[in-house]
C-alpha cells in the first residue's frame, strides 16, 4: 500500500551516507512488511538495496548471507553436497505464509529483523547456529547469535539505527543431519509451531530449536541423542504454558500441546 507519510527516500551506498539517525527513519529492505501495513511513524525510507552487498558466499567456514539477500536467491542457491542440513532451506522457505512472488522481494535480514514468531528465516538460521553481524550507528560491528538476536514477538536487540549486515551459518552446523516439522491452523498457512533439529553424524550434539510456538526461538542442546522421555522432560521444564505464544494463529495451549509432539517426530526421524 502507499506509505503516504513518507516524504524522503535515501539510497545510501555506505553507512556514512545515512548520517545521524533520527526518529522517523526506517531501513527499507524488500519492503514486503513495510508496504503491507500503514507506517505512520515513518517519514524517511533508507533503501538498503543501494548498499550493493553480495547476497551469498559459500566458503570453507560456512555460508555468508547478506541481510539484503532475497528469499528467492536463497531458494535458488545450490549448496555443497556436504551441507546436509541445507535441506532446511527449502523446508523453511516453504513454511512461510508468503507466496513465492514475495520471495522475489523479501530479504533474509528483513525477516530476521521483523522478529515475528513465524519468521521462518529465524527458524532456519537459529537452527543452523547462525550469527548475525550488526553495524551499530556508532562503534565497531558486533556479532550476536540469531537465537539471542530475537528477544520477543517483534522485538530484538537492534539499537536505534543499528543495521543488520549479514548472517553467517557455520559449516559445522550445515554438515549435520536435520529435520523439521511445522503446523498451521490452515493448509500451508502461518506457522503455529515450527520445530527443527540438527544432529551430528554420530548422533551426538542434538540441537532442538522451537520457533513459532514461542515468542522467540528456544534452543535445547543434548550432547547425547535424547530418548523420548528426556526430550519431553527437557521441553516441559524449559517451556511452561506461559512461555508459549498466543495469537490468532494458535492458542498458547495448542502450541504447548503440539510442540512436544512435533519434537518427538523429529527425534524419531533423526534417531
Amino acid at each position, binding site marked *: *500500500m*502507499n*506509505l*503516504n*507519510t*513518507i*516524504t*524522503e*527516500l535515501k539510497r545510501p551506498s555506505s553507512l556514512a551516507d545515512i548520517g545521524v539517525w533520527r526518529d522517523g527513519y526506517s531501513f*527499507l529492505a*524488500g*519492503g*514486503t512488511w513495510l*508496504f*503491507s*501495513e500503514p507506517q*505512520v511513524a515513518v517519514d524517511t*525510507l533508507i*533503501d538498503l*538495496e543501494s548498499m550493493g552487498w553480495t547476497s551469498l558466499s559459500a566458503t570453507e567456514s560456512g555460508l555468508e548471507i547478506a541481510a539484503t539477500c532475497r528469499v528467492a536467491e536463497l531458494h535458488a542457491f545450490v549448496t555443497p553436497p556436504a551441507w546436509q542440513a541445507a535441506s532446511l532451506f527449502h523446508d523453511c522457505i*516453504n513454511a512461510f*505464509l*508468503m*507466496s*513465492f*512472488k*514475495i520471495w*522475489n*522481494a523479501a530479504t533474509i535480514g528483513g525477516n530476521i529483523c521483523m522478529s515475528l514468531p513465524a519468521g521462518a528465516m529465524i527458524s532456519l538460521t537459529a537452527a543452523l547456529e547462525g550469527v548475525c553481524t550488526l553495524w551499530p550507528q556508532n562503534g565497531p560491528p558486533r556479532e550476536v547469535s540469531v537465537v539471542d538476536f530475537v528477544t520477543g514477538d517483534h522485538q530484538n536487540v537492534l539499537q536505534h539505527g543499528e543495521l543488520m549486515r549479514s548472517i553467517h551459518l557455520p559449516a559445522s552446523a550445515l554438515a549435520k543431519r536435520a529435520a523439521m516439522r511445522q*503446523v498451521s*491452523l*490452515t*493448509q*500451508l*498457512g*502461518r506457522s*503455529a509451531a515450527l520445530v527443527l533439529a540438527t544432529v551430528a553424524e554420530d548422533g551426538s550434539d542434538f540441537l532442538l530449536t522451537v520457533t513459532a510456538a514461542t515468542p522467540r526461538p528456544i534452543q535445547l542442546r543434548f550432547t547425547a541423542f535424547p530418548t523420548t522421555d528426556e526430550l519431553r522432560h527437557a521441553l516441559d521444564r524449559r517451556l511452561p504454558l506461559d512461555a508459549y505464544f498466543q495469537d*490468532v*494463529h*494458535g*492458542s498458547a*495451549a*495448542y502450541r504447548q*500441546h*503440539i510442540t512436544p*509432539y512435533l519434537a518427538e517426530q523429529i527425534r524419531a526421524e533423526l534417531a
Partner: protein
Amino acid sequence: MSRYDVNGRLYAAEPQPGECLRSFLRSLDVFGVKKGCDAGDCGACTVHIDGKPFHSCLVPAFRGDGCKITTIEGLAETGEWHPMQKAFHDAQAFQCGFCAAGMIMTAVTFTDAQRADLPHALKGNLCRCTGYRSINDALHGTCNIEPDVAGNALGASLANPFTSEILTGRARYTMDIAVANLLHLKVLRSPHAHARITGIDRSQALSIPGVVAVYTWEDVPKRLFSSALHEDHLVDPDDMMLLDDVVRFVGQRVAAVVAETEAAAEAGCRALEVEYEILPAVFDPVVAMQPGAPQLHAKDHLSNSGNIFCTLAGEIGDVAQGFAEAFAIHEQTYSTTRAQHVHLETHGSIAWKGADNRWHVRTSSQAPFAAQKKLAYVMGIPARDLHVFTERVGGGFGGKQEMVSEDLVLFATIKLNRPVSWEWTREEEFIAATTRHQMTTKVKIGARKDGTITAMDVEVVSNTGAYGGHGSETLGAAMASPIAAYRCKNKKGIGHAVYTNMTPAGGFRGYGASQTTFAIEQAIDELAVLLGIDPFAMRRRNVVMPGDNIESIWQEPSDASFGSHGIDECLDIVERELAKGNGIVKPEGADWLEGQGVALAMLECGPPTEHRSGAEMRLLPNGTYHLACGSTEMGNGITTAHKQIAAHILGTRIEDIDIINADTDRTPYDTGTFASTGTVVGGKAVHLAAEAMMADILAFASRHTGVALDQCRLDNDAVFCGNRRLSLSELHAAGTAVDHRFSVNRRAYLSPRTIAFNVQGVRLAVQRVTGEIRVLHSVHAADIGKPINPMQCRGQLDGAVAMGYGWALIENMVHDDAGRMVNPQLRNCRIPSFADTPHTDVFFANTIDAIGPLGAKSQGECGINPVAPAVANAIANATGLRFAHLPFTPDRLFARLAAHS
C-alpha cells in the same frame, strides 16, 4: 525524472517516495492492476518486473525505475491472447473476474514444478468466487464451454459475455476510471465501541495542504435510515445517520475528510482531534438482553424494549405433547460465527454532477435502485435527479446489499460540487462493513423409535451488532426454511435479534438460514445416532414432501410451494457417491480418524418480502437485440443467464443480444440482486420481455407482409412470413419507416416462491493430536431445477461450497474485550486459499421447475448452507465427539480430542 517501461510504453514520471507500484501504475491509467488487499495477501495486483512476478502493492514504485513492467494489459504482446488467457477463457476460470488478472500474471510464470504443486504455487492468490475449481481446470487445460449456437441457448454452458474484457484487463470495475478534478474521501473511524462525541476540533485537519473539507455529525442531514437495502425500507430499522454524535462500534464513522489526494485525506483524519465520552459497551447479546445492560439506541427507534430489536415466536401443534410422544430427545446449543464476505473488490463509489445537472453515483452495489431511493431520501433530493449505476462489480455475496460508501461521496459532491471518490481499504471491510450474523441456536428435537420427528423447539439469539439492518429478515430466515424442511406436527420457536456494540451484521449468502441449518442438521444426526438410524434414512423419513405443509412455526398461508421436488434424488446421489468413494484414502497412521457426514438445506427461492424486477428489450437496426435488466452482475453470472433466457425464446445466439444491467437510468427498476432472485425474478422479467419482443416482431411482420400471424415465425436473425424471408434488419427498417419501435418492457414479481434443496456429503480425516482436518471426499447435490447454464451453476455451487468450508474450518474474526478486531487483515483472518479448498463433485437433481422461469430455480446462495453441518457431522462420526461451535480450527478441537483418546 525516472523512466518506466510499462507494457512497452515509456513513461517519464516521479512517483511519491512512499508510493507503491500498484497505485503508481493505476495513476498511469493501467487499471488492470487490481487492489484486493493492498497488503500482499490476495495477489490481485500481480505484475512482472523484468519478467519476474511481484505483488505490486508491496513494491516501492521507485524500484520499477528503468525496469520493464508488464501488466495483464501487456501480456498479449502480439495482440494474440497469451495461451494462459485462452486457458482461462476456455475453463471460464473466474466469476466476478476481479482476481483473474493477478491469477493469470502469476500462473504464466509457473515452472513445471510449480504447476505440479498448485497449492504452494497459488498461495498468494485468493479468489472468493470460484472455489478454485475452474482455476484448477484452466491450469490443466480443461474446456468448460460450449459454442454459442442459435436456438441452443437454454442449458448450454456458454462463456461469460465479458470474458475478453476481464481476461485482458480492459473490464472496468468500480474504481477503474480516471475522473478529472477528482477529490478523495477518507473517514476517521471510532476506536471505541460505545462513546458520545463531545467535541471534534477540525482546525488542524483543515490546515493540511490539500484538505478541502471536513464533515462531522454537525454537518449532515438529521435523517435516520438503515444502510441495509430492501424493496421495503420498513423491514429495517431507521437507526443510523450519515454521521452521528454517538458511536456504537469500533470502526464506526466519526468524521469524513475530503481532500485533493488520498494522502491528504488520510493526514486530515489523523489530525482530527476528537473528544469522546466513553459509554459502557456490551458485546454479548445474551447480556445485552438483561435488564440494566447498556442501551444502544433511544427507545423510540426500537420496535421492542431494550436492546432486543426484534423477537419472532410461534408454535404449531402442541410441542409439549410432541415431546411426550418422543422415544428419544436431543437437546443442545450450537453456535456460529460472524464472517466477512471478502468480496475481492472492496466497497467504493465515485459521485459527480453531470452535464445534465443531475447527480451520478458509480458504485459497487447489489441494489442500485434501492440505493437510489435511499440516497434521495437521506439527501432530501428527488430520486429523478439521481443516477446510480454499476459497471463491473468484483463480488458481493450480500456485502453490497448495503449502502455504505455511496452516501458520503454523494453528500460531499453535493456540498463541494466536485467529483468525489471513496475506496475502502481491506481493513475497513473487516471492521466497518457488515458480517454474517453471529447466532446461537438451542435445539430440542424428539422422535419416535422409527425416526418420525414428533416435536421441534428452536431458540435463536442473533447478534445484530450496533445497527439492525437485516436483523429481522435474517432472523425470519433463520426461523423459517431450516425448520420447515422437516415434516413435524409440533414445532415451536423463539428468536431474538439483539443490538450489541459489535460491527453491524448484515446479509450474507445463506442469510440466516445457514446458521439454523448448522444447528438443526447436527441435531438430526444426533437424534439418528440415539435411535440407531442411518442419517440418510432419518432425513428421508422426515423431510417435507409435496402434499405436506411447508411450514415452520407459523400456520399463516405461505406462498412457498413445490414447483418441483428433488430432495430424494439429492440424498440418493450423495449417498451413492460417498459409498462409491473417490479413491482418496485417509493419511497413514493411527492418529488419523476417518468419518463421513451429510446435511441438507432447503431454500425458499426468494425472500418472503416484496421483490420485483423489470426487463426491457429492443430490436436494433442491425437485426440484433438490446436487453436491459436491473439485476446486478457481480460474478453471479446473471447477465449470461438473462441473455440465455432471451436467446432461447428468440431462437438466437447470446452474442446477438447486448445487455445492460444495474443502472437506474438505463434499465427498468429492479429491487436488487440478493435473496437468490436473479434467475427467478430478474430472469422471469427477461423471459416475459423476450416473449413480448417476439410477439411484437411477429405481429409487425404479419401486418407488414400481410401474411397471417400464424404463418409467421422467427428464425434466428430473420422472420419467415409464409415462404418469404425478411432479415431482422430489413424488418427493423420497415418498422422505422412507419414509426414502429420494436421495444417492449415487462415486469415480474415474486410469488409464489418455489423450493430448492441442497445436500452436502463429506468424508474427512481428523488428526487427533494436531486437530488438523483433511477433507477427503466432498459431494454436493443440488436441486435447482433446469440449469440455464450448467457450467455457471456448477461454478456458483463450487464457490458456495468453498465458502462453507471456509466458514466451518478456517475463517475466524477475533475481537478483544473492548470490541476491537484483533486480526483485520487477510493474512491474519484467513479465507480459503487454493490449498484449503477441497475439490467438490457437484451433481444436479433432474428436476424441471413448474414455477421458475424455463424450469429454473435459485442457485446462487443455498449451496453454502449444508456444508458446515455436514463437516460437523463427519467430525462427530470420525471422533465420537460433537463439536457444536464454529469454527473447527485445530486449536479449538485439540483439547477435547486429546482428552477423548
